[in-house]
Structures are given as C-alpha cells and as structure tokens.
C-alpha cells in the first residue's frame, strides 16, 4: 500500500451516512468481496470519500465493494461489489 494514498479512511468514518441505508450496525458487518472472494470485516475496508460520493474498496484486492452517493434528497447505492453483506442483530450493550 503506497504511502501517498492518504486519502482513504475506514468505513467507520462513513458509518453515520451508511446508517441511513441500514438499520443494523454496518460497522460490525462482515462482507465477501465478489472480485477476490476475501471475507473480512467491513470496518477494515478502505473508504475513499469523495463527498457527496464514497467508494468502499476491498482491503485485499482494492476492487470496489460498494459506492454510495448522498445528497439532501436521496441516497444512491451500488452494492454489486459484495457477494454478501452479513449484519449482526446483536447490539453492543450500552
């Protein structure tokens, strides 16, 4: 991973926005990359935020897992890069 690719964050940073799409906590999701088959916590994927768009990439092969665009009126989501998204119903105890 080249040192100057400083533009990426992790999915945590987008969790507030992604929460608009998912009622279950997306930061605890597990995903499988449809390109390289890697199974990993979504939270460890790379987030490239180009607000109003964001791209989440597999931290193995760097292919796109999902793209999300948000404005005041709409959220657009393309999840084709995921073979699956697994969300847990169990909440952290507050």
């Amino acid at each position: 991973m080249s040192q100057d690719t400083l533009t990426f964050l992790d999915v945590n940073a987008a969790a507030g926005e992604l929460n608009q799409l998912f009622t279950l906590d997306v930061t605890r999701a597990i995903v499988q990359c449809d390109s390289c088959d890697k199974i990993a916590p979504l939270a460890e994927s790379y987030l490239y935020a180009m607000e109003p768009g964001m791209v989440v990439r597999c931290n193995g092969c760097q292919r796109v897992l999902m793209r999300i665009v948000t404005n005041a009126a709409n959220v657009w989501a393309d999840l084709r890069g995921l073979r699956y998204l697994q969300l847990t119903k169990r909440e952290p105890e507050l």
Partner: protein
Amino acid sequence: MGRLNWLVASVATLREETPQARTLVLDVPDWPGHVAGQHVDVRLTAADGYSTARSYSIANAADGKRVELTVVRIPEGEVSPYLTEEIGVRDLVEIRGPIGGWFVWQPVQTESVQLIAGGSGLVPLMAMIRTRVAVRHRAPFRLLYSVRDPESVLYAAELQDIVAQVPVTYAYTRRVPNGSMERPHRVDAATLASATWPAASAPTCYVCGPTAFVEVAADLLRSAGHEPARIRTERFGPSGGSP
C-alpha cells in the same frame, strides 16, 4: 439500532487540553448511552441554513447524558476552529450517534489490550482507558502514544495519574521533553518490541490516528506476529482530524 436521529446537545463546559485542543462537555438529554471507541457525527447549522457535519470520537466513558468530545484545531479548517475557539457554554450543536460497533472495547472483554495512538487518535482510546479505570477492570492495558512534542500530549496529567494501571510509552516525533535522553523518532519495530504486549499474549490491538500512521503501525503489528483478526484500526484521514 434503528435510524439514528440528530439530537440537540448543549455545551455544559469547555476544557482546554492543549494550545490546539479543547474538550467539549456536552449535555444530550436524549442520549442513549455509548460504548468506548464509538464516535458521533456533529452537525453545525449557520443562521442562513448552511450546515455541515464532521465526525468526532467520544472521549469519555459512558456517563448518563454526558458526551465529551476532544477537538483538535486544524488551521484553515471549517469546523474545528469554530469548536475550539468560538463555541461557548450553553451553545447548541446537533449530534448523531453513538456510531460504531467494531472499534469498541467493552468490559466483557478479558484479554489484554494494546492501544496505539497517533496524535489525536488517542481520543477513542482514552474512552477505553477511562472505562477500564471506572469499572476497575483487571485486563492488562498498555498504551503506545506517538505524539509530536510534549505540549501536544492530550490528557497528560490524567495519563500520569493512572500510569500504574495503564503504562504509557510516549514516542515523540518532533521534540522530546527537556532532559530526555531520547531522540525524536517515529514508531518502528524496535518501539513495538520494547513498548507493546508481545504477540504471544494475544492482545486485542486498537490503532487509531492519521491514515499513514495507522497503516505503518498495523503493518508493524502484523510483522511482529499479531493476528490480523486481533488488530482493529480507525483512520482519521491525512490531517489526523476533522477540519
């Protein structure tokens, strides 16, 4: 979890941490509680309706309706100068949260914990430390804190007070304290070897800070033998904070 809504928060007190950093102690009447490591989105709205939002890690252990955020001022930033210089007691902001279920530490965990902070990345880790102290937890905790110089150290007095419970190693990158025999340096394999739990003790590692720092530190942990599944990371972006 349901949809998170924006909640009104008012500033109860302000605490200057360093010349560049300030803690906002917020009262949030509808706060559901939080877990150490979680963050909030903060939304500011100007009188003409313009609004913008930033993410901040929660700095305090769960404490009823109280949420503490430590904000570092980014010069030329849009939000951090307002929060560190302009906002006053009784002023209002909106917050949405708590957010995050991955980069969290909870007292049900019994394994040892290695915390690695780069600059303002200490904030969510401090919530973990404060939680551990508050419940008198027994899990071995260590903190490796990479920081520019002694004046930039967040929560310096508090970390000093609890050092028997949470040993801290400071890695100064620009300037060391007067009288120190060390030279400024960035965290490297030797730092890890002397200042962190060994991989054999299978700690859960939490690494937080600017993206480049987190990449280096996580790589070093993996090279030292830590299982990737036991390394949790949170990246703050190139400037290490929310501008």
